[in-house]
């Protein structure tokens, strides 16, 4: 948690200075199909960056490139000043990138608590033999991380499902647990793939508040894909718009809203 300047009630100032991650001329193909063509944009520290676009615009592919599931054929991604050619997901995780999936990707056989605890895996250092004893240092480590996880559970208000297996939880709660799991990694960059898909209005409001709180309280930079334009306009500082794998607009919500190309491509289309 970095120290943010404190302002009067309710409003906040986000430090939006340096570029945390920049995507430079990325192109991604699957066989002959072009998923992303020559897209560049950047994500600044502390901001909420939305990626929007019609179905099949390549939004999820973009996230997959950023956290290393896909390796783009062309272009580069610079994260924290580090230019990377190839990236494996676990390396991205170690570098401070966490994400959630469009269709919840929780560990269905495990409890909420254990799911979130897996987010702490990278931070747990005690070796195999201590783990086999589960006493002394290994236990202390478990407890220390349990504390962090409990804070997250408290933050997301999911105390009541702490010990329930996630497989049977309602969808909205699963999404919340998945966010919790990502938060447990204490990421610098949080990628959210349609965090509000399939939620009812109340759940959406809750999720919006959590996203804002995460950004505000922990100073986490967030990149999100979302279909609900109202949500995007309310939440995000800047928006990048993709269509057929190409970038067609980039700017503040107001600028994007006024962009004719965007209106043609996206806003005009009922979703």
């Amino acid at each position: 948690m970095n120290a943010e300047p404190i302002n009067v009630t309710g409003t906040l100032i986000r430090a939006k200075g340096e570029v945390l991650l920049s995507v430079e001329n990325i192109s991604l193909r699957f066989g002959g199909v072009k998923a992303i063509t020559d897209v560049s944009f950047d994500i600044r520290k502390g901001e909420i960056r939305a990626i929007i676009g019609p179905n099949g615009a390549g939004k999820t592919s973009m996230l997959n490139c950023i956290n290393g599931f896909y390796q783009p054929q062309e272009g580069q991604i610079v994260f924290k000043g580090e230019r990377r050619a190839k990236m494996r997901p676990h390396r991205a995780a170690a570098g401070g990138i966490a994400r959630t999936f469009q269709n919840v990707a929780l560990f269905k056989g495990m409890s909420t608590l254990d799911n979130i605890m897996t987010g702490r895996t990278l931070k747990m250092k005690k070796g195999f033999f201590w783990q086999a004893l589960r006493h002394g240092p290994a236990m202390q480590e478990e407890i220390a991380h349990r504390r962090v996880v409990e804070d997250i559970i408290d933050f997301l208000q999911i105390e009541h499902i702490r010990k329930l297996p996630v497989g049977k939880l309602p969808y909205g709660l699963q999404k919340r647990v998945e966010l919790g799991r990502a938060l447990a990694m204490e990421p610098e960059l949080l990628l959210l793939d349609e965090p509000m898909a399939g939620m009812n209005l109340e759940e959406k409001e809750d999720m919006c508040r959590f996203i804002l709180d995460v950004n505000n309280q922990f100073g986490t930079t967030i990149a999100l894909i979302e279909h609900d334009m109202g949500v995007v306009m309310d939440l995000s500082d800047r928006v990048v718009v993709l269509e057929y794998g190409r970038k067609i607009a980039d700017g503040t919500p107001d600028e994007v809203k006024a962009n004719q190309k965007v209106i043609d491509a996206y806003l005009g289309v009922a979703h």
Partner: protein
Amino acid sequence: MSDIATRPAPSLLASPLVKFGLIVAAIVVALAIGVRLDTSNTLYAIFVDPFQQMVQAPDLLVQTVWEGLVSGVLYALIALGFVLIFKASGVFNFAQGIMVVFAALTLVGLYEKGVPAFLAVIITLGVMFALAVTIERVVLRPLVNQPDIILFMATFGITYFLIGFGEALFGGNPKQMIAEQLYLPKGAVDLQILGGLVSLQKIDIAAALIASLMIAALAAFFQYTRIGRALRAVADSHKAALSVGISLNQIWVIVWFTAGIVALITGIMWGARSDVSFALEIVALKALPVLILGGFTSIPGAIVGGLIIGIGEKLGEFYWGPLVGGGIESWLAYFIALGFLLFRPQGLFGDKIIERI
């Protein structure tokens, strides 16, 4: 819905060319170092001598390949039974091997009870049909919509049940197949080729022929009959099959029965070559590497895979086996498959495996 993208299966090394080059290079280097360090000519025995033997005694090579071919045909037949069921119902039927044994035992057992040979065949077919219906009723129907692994495990249950059932009915001792009574040829054909004598068992030739005929018949069945088309449809989509007007349950009975027919034929052929015993159950496991080579859903794959495994295994056993004390037949097939898996996980004819995120 947003874009569902696909993720290429991870590969150890990006380009196949690089991969191949590296392997060749590694072998050459290993050989070079090895020969220099080699005092007891082990490397010579592995990498040079067998090939010299092949060239020097081509008749032995032909004989070995032929034997491999024949056992390959039988592997292919068992694999065929697997593929039929896997394609139509997604069940990985571990019990195919025991079905072969069971069919053969039933046939022989019936004959021993005094039933005329061909009537026994027909009754055995009836038994296999009854088995298919029973399995559908008792096992598959209650387990519909369960994960594949559960169905796989259920076929283990079928296997064990059939072993116990078969042994209880027919006893555990090996039996002689009634090859003569079924007018299967006996004896051998000796061919004078390549400066040596190659001996081909007539039964083996018959097996190869019958297997080919059966495969052709199956292909025709799938291609030209309504049920066959429905079966192919069900492999793609259960709904499509329903639209043809055949219920899923019927389809299951049909494929299991078809697999039962294949099992009976396999059992007769195999039994005619050696004898009918439960040892075949272990041999049937060889169908697994065959399937890996051929892909789980491809009939031609099953055949080609069966032949590759059969020939590879016999060659390996004959030329390299003695180096390590023999008996490598028992595991060579799996290692061939394993090697395949690492470089072509989808098999020879399988579709490219794509992971969705």
